[in-house]
């Protein structure tokens, strides 16, 4: 076991835990954002650099600080390690730099992007980005390629997190897609425009943090926040069959895997469940899904209020006795509202 302190909160975790996992065990707002790390995929993470944190003290044995910010998703904790995330202005500054880098070539076509509302890049930009861009050049564009009749690839939106490549490597046989070229023209592609065909290829849609890989059967059908998530299952010969159905009215518009609050799927699902079973009679309904992401996707689920209350409670506890959190009139300074 190793004792690690993240933003002044101490937790004991098993050896080999990464800083990010330890932070997730603590939970709350000190969890670094992760765009490429995916706990269900081996060797994922380390690429996007949004989860960087400062290690103030390497370990109890060797208390020297680490010279550079480290990727929390790939750095394992040591006993006595002291980590700073949101309490370090340096880290926040560096992170806003990374967000800016991720956005300079992103098309920002959210109004026509199917991922909008459940996009991790949107969340990240709201939380850590700047209000306006300093990039004044033409954004990078890729030639559209067709990778089959189920999955739509929009390379322009890709942030090269490599998650889909790892899914194809670890979940399916004979990966046909990967990263071609290098530098800022590197792209997710299939060699000689192969189409991606195997039973679990649809999972690349779920792991994609942005709108680079989307569901062709759901394309332009509805904004995600107009659809209602319902947990359901069926007897599936290929997978566990535990899915989330997204309803609009009586129609199942989309089937996805169930995701936790970090946007990671709980269990992979097969293409048959995802693309072919789109009537209620195919499924046994379990009930409405709880979505506790803090972004647009959970609008109308009243989850945000609950989170807000919890935050206020925590702040009350953190304050010295006698002081009260003033939430009445006058507590809000209109000058401090920047629309974030």
């Amino acid at each position, binding site marked *: 076991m190793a004792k690690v302190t993240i933003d002044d909160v101490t937790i004991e975790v098993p050896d080999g835990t990464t800083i990010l996992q330890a932070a997730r065990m603590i939970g709350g707002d000190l969890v670094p954002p992760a765009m490429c790390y995916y706990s269900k995929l081996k060797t994922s*993470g*380390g*690429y*996007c*650099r949004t989860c*960087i944190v400062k290690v103030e003290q390497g370990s109890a044995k060797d208390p020297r600080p680490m*010279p*550079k*910010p480290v*990727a929390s998703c*790939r750095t394992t904790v040591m006993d006595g390690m002291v980590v700073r995330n949101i309490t370090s202005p340096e880290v926040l500054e*560096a992170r806003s*730099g*990374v967000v*800016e*880098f*991720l956005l*300079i*070539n992103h098309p920002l076509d959210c109004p026509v992007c199917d991922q909008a509302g459940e996009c991790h890049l949107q969340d990240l930009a709201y939380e850590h980005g700047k209000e306006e861009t*300093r*990039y004044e*050049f033409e954004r990078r564009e890729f030639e559209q390629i067709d990778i089959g009749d189920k999955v739509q690839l929009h390379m322009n939106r890709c*942030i*090269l997190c490599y998650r889909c490549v790892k899914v194809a490597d670890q979940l399916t046989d004979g990966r046909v897609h*990967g*990263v071609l*070229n*290098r*530098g*800022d*023209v*590197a792209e997710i592609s299939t060699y000689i425009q192969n189409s991606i065909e195997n039973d679990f290829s649809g999972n690349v849609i779920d792991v994609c943090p942005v709108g680079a890989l989307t569901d062709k059967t759901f394309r332009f059908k509805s904004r995600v926040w107009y659809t209602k998530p319902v947990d359901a299952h069926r007897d599936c010969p290929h997978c566990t069959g535990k899915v989330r159905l997204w309803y609009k009215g009586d129609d199942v518009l989309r089937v996805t895997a169930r995701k936790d609050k970090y946007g990671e799927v709980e269990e992979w699902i097969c293409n048959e469940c995802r693309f072919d079973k789109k009537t209620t009679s195919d499924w046994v309904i379990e009930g409405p899904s709880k979505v506790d992401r803090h972004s647009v996707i959970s609008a109308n689920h009243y989850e945000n209020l609950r989170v807000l209350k919890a935050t206020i409670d925590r702040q009350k506890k953190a304050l010295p006795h006698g002081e009260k959190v003033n939430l009445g009139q006058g507590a809000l300074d209109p000058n401090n509202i920047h629309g974030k």
Partner: protein
Amino acid sequence: MGKKLLLEHIDVPGINTLSVYRSKGGYTALDKALKTMTPDAVVEEVKTSGLRGRGGAGFPTGMKWSFLAKPEGVPRYVVCNADESEPGTFKDRYLMEKIPHLLIEGMIVSGFALGAKSSYIYIRGEYFYVARILEQAIAEAYEAGLLGKNILNSGFDHDCYVQVGAGAYICGEETALLESLEGKRGNPRIKPPFPAVAGLYGCPTVVNNVETIAAVVPIVNMGGAAYAGIGVGKSTGTKLISASGHINKPGVYEIELGVPVEEFIYSDEYCGGIKGDRKLKAVVAGGSSVPILPADLILKTANGEPRLMSYESLADGGFASGTMLGSGGFIVMDESTSIVKNLYTFTRFYHHESCGQCSPCREGTGWMEKILHKILHGHGSISDVDLLWDIQSKIEGKTICPLGDAAAWPVASAIRHFRGEFEEFVRNGHSIKDVRHYYRLNGLPEPAYS
């Protein structure tokens, strides 16, 4: 004339052949190591010698070797990094082309010291003809029983292979090199684990520069203590410097570490002064990625001491007023050079060579290139210079491998020391070289540039 350890016999005709190399004392180090020393004794000699990595980072080689994990039943590898791609550096090519057996001998001795039964020379694709020369030398060594089974009847087996890369700068980064050697996409790995624990094919691996491995030969021959006697302070031994730019005698020079920079530039023994007796403007002392220094700071440190060609002296003053010895790519620029144009060239290179794996480097290098292009073509503004500074600060130290740093440092140092020139570009919209020409032609007083 300084002492030469690596290039002593470089001018002997036919030194690239085994017979001539042996007649000049070649393979005595191998003989000595195999017959009179234990592997640990060789490592100890290298430690005593104080040899530091010649590829750029200057990490003590003996220490690197002692970090090598030695689990039972797992092979260990020695990999030679001959992917010399740093702009301004061409010393390894010269060494391998002229005297390939020195490297081969170094590989076998290093392999013996580290208990590696095979070693690989990963050479960049552009050096295809050098790979041929090395292969020829390896074939000769096999024929003479210097490679293969039971070398010199010592019971030590060693095989050496040459692998040609496909011409990517990033494959000079040790973990990207290993990926490439394994036949994968040349993306740097995330460390830890370090190659000393899990390197090539997941086995403990030591990756060293060509010159470092070659330097093991004189160290074994003369003993670590004698090697440590050459040089200055913690910069021991000799170093190959690739001198280029506006100098009278560009080329590869072997120097004893500690030669004053002024002597190196102006002495006839080395660079022979600036071409056309023009004034020195700036020097990039260790290959394109290290910070550029203006004439006054490269000749003397910030506290007025003469700067020496050594790891410590060049780094004196940190990045505020110092630089790095790096890989020894010594690029001299005279007063006719435009720093902005030069920086644009460097930045374009790093943009082109970024592997695209992590976001700050992938996106930032291209952005910096675009801004510099804009400034260079007279469309820039003062805020662009500040933006450039901000971008480099957000790349440096935030990336997986040092390529991000290598792309950021030239930009940072150029702005730090030559900000006036950038502003001149912004104001006048053309190069400083042309501005000077304009002022001189019209007999006007020149403005202060920096």
